[in-house]
Every structure is written in structure tokens, then in C-alpha cells.
């Protein structure tokens, strides 16, 4: 029985969160270009000018680039400001995207990242002139180790996927040192796409293992599949269903007794920080996504950082260099690591992102548990208020995210993508559609702790209204969104005849 939203009669709900607003039209910057316009001026040269043809040889020079923009400063400001108003953002409201942990990006983090003396430092300058930077890295490392309950860390990987790769390479190096690197890595069918992709780059074969009827790892299955050929299992905990793997200790045991290791994808750490430590439940190596749990901004797709935490057995294999504190208390980079897997990126990693994550951690201190509790509270509150209108495929305790499916709405031909697009008209960004793969028509919702009760209630109201519409007026959902600058875009044409750049006619 679908309940009507609170303040409607027989038409779709009044949308409370977002209204109609005029935003500016804008073309491409190249279309505003005209010869002679400049956006930035340089101070005059204080040394003799050189003739490029003489200095480089005229076979090595180029003319000014045809079609390159020529615009003024105000046009640049207006162009990008106008563009920005076409985006949704955390600063505007909730992103209920599952496993993305779209939480508030604290502004003090932006301020400190830009300080003179931090933003300005060259990674090759002497360690004695970089003690501030090195201490920031060292302090962050300590915090992350405390939160995860692990023994050693690398801050070098610059994304979760890169962290996965580094972790897998360390597993390989460790097993090699034991005499046999083995051949396969087990991956649950609910895993994020980067997991199998990373396994292949690490030179291993992917072996998919099915989840059981509870959406958890089937331990009998695992026992059967963990042969002497298996290097590791990559698990996400809580899983991509938002459910804690109840038998995680047993899972770790099965692997360890067969000489394999347990890798944890830390994407869902927002359910655990301050509450439980992966190091305690048998994880040998994990990566964290600082752009998820640790609040660093997504910026439209990046940057991120994917530090990797390991148990002692993997410590010798960490990427080089590691950040250390020497006996005299000063900080340094240890390049003398003969067993290291090597470098995964030039320099130390995404220092600016690491710095922001430290600022975030310092803001909370031991109180970080409260953030985790609020995240789990929000997810369960939303679940409780939507369980009667959306199908819940796995009726298990949710942690920080909940996964519904479109099964009920499908009867009227309305699927998860349609519902997601209609949510846009209600002023929200869609939740994660069609993932995890084990739930057909999945609707994966993670509010994070940054959402107030008010925002959660607005979201619930929107979702309930859409469920009502799916029942009574499915067309309005199937053809959504109706309120955006552009309607659904032709992705087929974009893929058949890709136009990937502007061209000067």
C-alpha cells in the first residue's frame, strides 16, 4: 500500500527542497574568443629577450596555437561561474550515493592546504627544509593506523584503485618471499569494478565467488575455493549492501590457514571509524579512500588518495619511500627499502589531499565515533521510512547504507534509473543505480553523517512521492528529469560518433 505524501491531493507532491530558478546560458570558452583579448598579464622581462628560432632552432618552435582561447579575466570568471551553477554539489544538498560517502568538505581544510609554506613546497627539496610537510604525513599516518588498528602504512597511492593495486602487489611480494606468489584472487560478485581491474594489473587472475542468500560471503564456498593457488580474498566490509560481514573472523581464519591473505576494500570505512578496527578482525591489508571517509573534496571526479595500511608481515614490501621519524625526532623519507614493491607514483603522493584528511581527523579527535554513529543513524532512519514503499532484497541490519530494489515499481515499467532521474526534480542528486550487481534494479542509498534530520526528511518525502507517482502516474517518472537545463542526453549518439573536443572551423 503506497502512502500518499504528506501535503498532496491527487497530484504529485509539492517539491519542497528545490524551486524554479533561472540560470545563465553559456557556450564554450572557445566560442567567446577573439584576437587581442588577454586574461592574465605577466610582469615585464627583466633579462634580455631571446629569439626562439635562434634559441631552439626553427624546426623546434611553434607559432601561437590556432584556436586557443583569447578572453578577458571577467569573461573567464563569468564563464566558469555560470558553468558552476549548472552543477549539483554537497554544498547544495544530500548526495545519497551508496559507497561514495559524500560528506561535508570542511572549509578550514581548503584554507590550510593553501598556506604559504605548504602549497609552495617542492617535493625534491632537502628533508631538513621539509620537516613541516614530513610531520604532517607522519601524523596522518599515525592517526590512520590508530583508526584501522594496523601496523604500518604507505601514503603514496593517489586513489582507492591505486591503493588496491599497491596492496595486491605487496601481497604478491610477500607470497613470493614465502616461495610461491600463487595465481588467483577471490572477489565477491558484489565487489566494486576497480577490484577485478586491479587484480588483473597486479598479474593475478580473478576468481568470482558468489554471495549467499544473505548477500554475505558464503564460507563453505570460500573453503572450497581457497586452494593453494589463491593469494587473497578482496572483501568490502561492510559489504556493498551496507551489511557487516558477520563471519569476517571465520573468513580470515579460512584464508590464513591456507596461507592466503585478507584484503579489505576500505570504501565503507564510514561505518566503522571509531567503532571497530579492521586490524582486529583479521584484515592483513586495506586501503582507505580519503575522498570518502576522510572528507577530502570530490572536485567533480578527483583528486583522491588511497593510503594502504598493512600488518607487520607486509611492512617490508611497502612502496618506497616511507615516511619515518628518526631517532633524533626529525622526520625523513626512507629510500633504503630493498624489499619494496617499488614506487606507485612520483614523489610522496597527493600531499594536498593527505593534508586535508589530517585536518579533518584533528577536528574530530577521539570523537570520530560520533560521525560514524550519525552516519549509521541516518541510513537506518531513512530505511525505516522507506521500507514499506520500496522492495528490500536483503532484510539484514544496515550499517551506513541501505540497498533497495525497483522490483515493486518495475510492475509499471518504472526502473531504478527512472526513479533516480525523478529524484533530480525533487532537488536531490540520484542515489547509486544498478550497483551492486547482485541486486537487479538496485537503489543504493548512503546519506552520511552530514545530513540533518531536515534533509533526511525531505529525501524521504521525495522518495515516497516518487513511489506514489510510479503507481499513479508512471510516465512522469519514466520521462524525468523535467526541471533541468538539459533533458536526458543521447548517450548512444555520443558513443557511436564520439565528439571529444571542440574544433576550429
Amino acid at each position: 500500500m503506497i502512502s500518499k505524501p504528506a501535503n498532496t491531493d491527487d497530484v504529485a507532491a509539492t517539491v519542497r527542497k528545490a524551486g524554479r530558478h533561472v540560470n545563465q546560458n553559456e557556450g564554450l570558452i572557445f566560442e567567446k574568443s577573439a584576437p587581442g583579448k588577454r586574461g592574465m598579464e605577466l610582469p615585464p622581462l627583466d633579462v634580455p629577450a631571446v629569439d626562439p628560432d635562434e634559441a631552439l632552432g626553427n624546426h623546434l618552435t611553434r607559432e601561437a596555437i590556432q584556436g586557443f582561447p583569447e578572453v578577458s579575466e571577467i569573461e573567464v570568471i563569468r564563464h566558469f561561474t555560470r558553468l558552476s551553477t549548472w552543477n549539483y554539489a554537497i554544498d547544495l544538498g544530500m548526495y545519497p550515493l551508496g559507497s561514495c560517502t559524500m560528506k561535508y568538505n570542511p572549509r578550514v581544510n581548503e584554507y590550510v592546504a593553501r598556506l604559504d609554506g605548504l602549497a609552495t613546497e617542492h617535493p625534491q627539496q632537502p628533508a631538513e627544509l621539509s620537516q613541516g610537510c614530513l610531520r604532517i604525513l607522519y601524523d596522518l599516518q599515525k592517526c590512520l593506523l590508530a583508526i584501522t588498528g594496523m601496523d604500518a602504512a604507505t601514503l603514496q597511492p593517489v586513489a582507492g584503485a591505486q591503493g588496491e593495486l599497491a596492496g595486491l602487489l605487496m601481497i604478491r611480494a610477500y607470497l613470493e618471499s614465502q616461495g610461491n606468489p600463487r595465481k588467483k584472487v577471490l572477489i565477491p560478485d558484489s565487489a566494486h569494478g576497480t577490484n577485478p581491474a586491479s587484480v588483473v594489473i597486479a598479474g593475478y587472475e580473478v576468481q568470482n565467488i558468489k554471495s549467499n542468500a544473505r548477500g554475505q560471503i558464503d564460507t563453505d564456498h570460500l573453503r572450497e575455493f581457497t586452494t593453494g593457488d589463491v593469494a587473497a580474498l578482496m572483501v568490502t566490509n561492510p559489504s556493498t549492501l551496507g551489511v557487516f560481514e558477520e563471519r569476517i573472523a571465520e573468513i580470515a581464519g579460512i584464508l590464513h590457514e591456507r596461507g592466503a591473505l585478507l584484503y579489505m576494500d576500505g570504501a565503507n570505512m564510514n561505518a566503522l571509524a571509531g567503532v571497530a578496527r579492521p586490524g582486529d578482525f583479521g584484515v592483513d591489508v586495506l586501503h582507505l579512500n580519503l575522498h570518502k571517509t576522510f572528507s577530502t573534496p570530490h572536485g567533480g571526479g578527483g583528486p583522491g588518495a588511497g593510503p594502504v595500511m598493512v600488518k607487520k608481515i607486509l611492512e617490508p614490501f611497502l612502496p618506497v619511500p616511507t615516511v619515518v621519524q628518526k631517532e633524533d625526532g626529525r622526520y625523513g623519507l626512507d629510500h633504503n627499502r630493498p624489499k619494496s614493491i617499488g614506487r606507485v607514483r612520483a614523489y610522496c603522493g597527493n600531499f594536498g589531499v593527505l593534508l586535508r584528511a589530517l585536518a579533518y581527523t584533528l577536528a574530530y579527535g577521539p570523537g570520530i565515533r560520533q560521525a560514524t554513529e550519525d552516519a549509521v543513524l541516518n541510513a537506518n532512519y531513512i530505511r525505516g521510512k522507506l521500507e514499506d514503499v520500496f522492495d528490500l532484497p536483503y532484510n539484514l541490519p544496515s550499517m551506513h547504507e541501505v540497498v533497495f530494489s525497483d522490483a515493486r515499481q518495475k510492475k509499471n515499467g518504472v526502473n531504478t534509473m527512472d526513479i533516480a532521474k525523478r529524484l533530480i526534480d525533487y532537488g536531490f542528486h540520484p542515489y547509486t543505480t544498478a550497483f551492486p550487481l547482485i541486486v537487479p534494479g538496485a537503489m543504493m542509498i548512503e546519506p552520511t553523517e552530514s545530513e540533518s534530520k531536515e534533509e533526511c526528511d525531505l529525501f524521504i518525502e521525495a522518495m515516497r512521492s516518487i513511489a506514489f507517482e510510479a503507481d499513479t502516474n508512471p510516465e512522469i517518472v519514466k520521462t524525468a528529469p523535467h526541471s533541468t537545463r538539459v533533458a536526458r542526453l543521447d548517450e548512444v549518439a555520443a558513443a557511436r560518433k564520439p565528439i571529444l573536443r571542440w574544433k576550429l572551423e
Partner: protein
Amino acid sequence: MYPEGYRYTKDHEWIKVEGSAATIGITDYAQQELGDVVFVELPKVGAEIKTGQSFGTVESVKAVSEIYAPLSGQITEINSALSDTPEKINQDPHGSAWLVKVLIADPKEANSLMDAAAYQAHIAAQAKGHSS
């Protein structure tokens, strides 16, 4: 709907055998599952294909399907029209949107493939699995 003279695989390829030559494509069911086709990747003329092994891909916006060889043989012709108009696969999967023509090693292999009736039963069973 599914041409009588063709044979079918469980992975939704069809093959039309004429003596020692054959034409291979993907079925209407396959194109429906994929959605609008945006790109087709095929091997070069002269390449060998082996029964059950992937020899190309058909892509939509959201998915990529491997094309598995129903029989072993050597490619004699590829349907070059598909590089410009891949949508033909959605429009005419059993006719003008054939993928490759091959010289087959052992024409008798085709007998072990499904005929139109068996294939129709196969997809009916698959569809049942989906809707639950």
C-alpha cells in the same frame, strides 16, 4: 522470428551454414539485451576462430558482449558496414547485420548446435529466470 535454416548457440550467436562456408551474427534476443549498439570489434580477414572462444565484441553504452565462435574456421569476410552504422545490429540482426563470414573446418560441428525451436525454448527459459 528466428530463421529456420539457422543454428544457434546458448550465448546467442546464430550461424548459417552453406557447404563449407558460414555466416555468423548475434540474435535478436542478444541485441535486445544489449540495447542500442554503438560499436563492434571484429578480427581481421584471415584470422582463425575456435569453437567457444571469443573473437570480438559488441558494445552498447552500458555493456560489452563477447562474441563466441559457434564453430572453428577462418574469417573470409567481415561486415564493414557495421563500423559506420552499428545500429544495423538492432535493426536487422539476422540479415544485413551479419558479423563475419567464415570458411569452416568441420561443417558437421553445426549439428550439435540448437535449431530455431530449441533456441526459442532456451530464451524462454532465460527470460523466466530474469523476471523473478
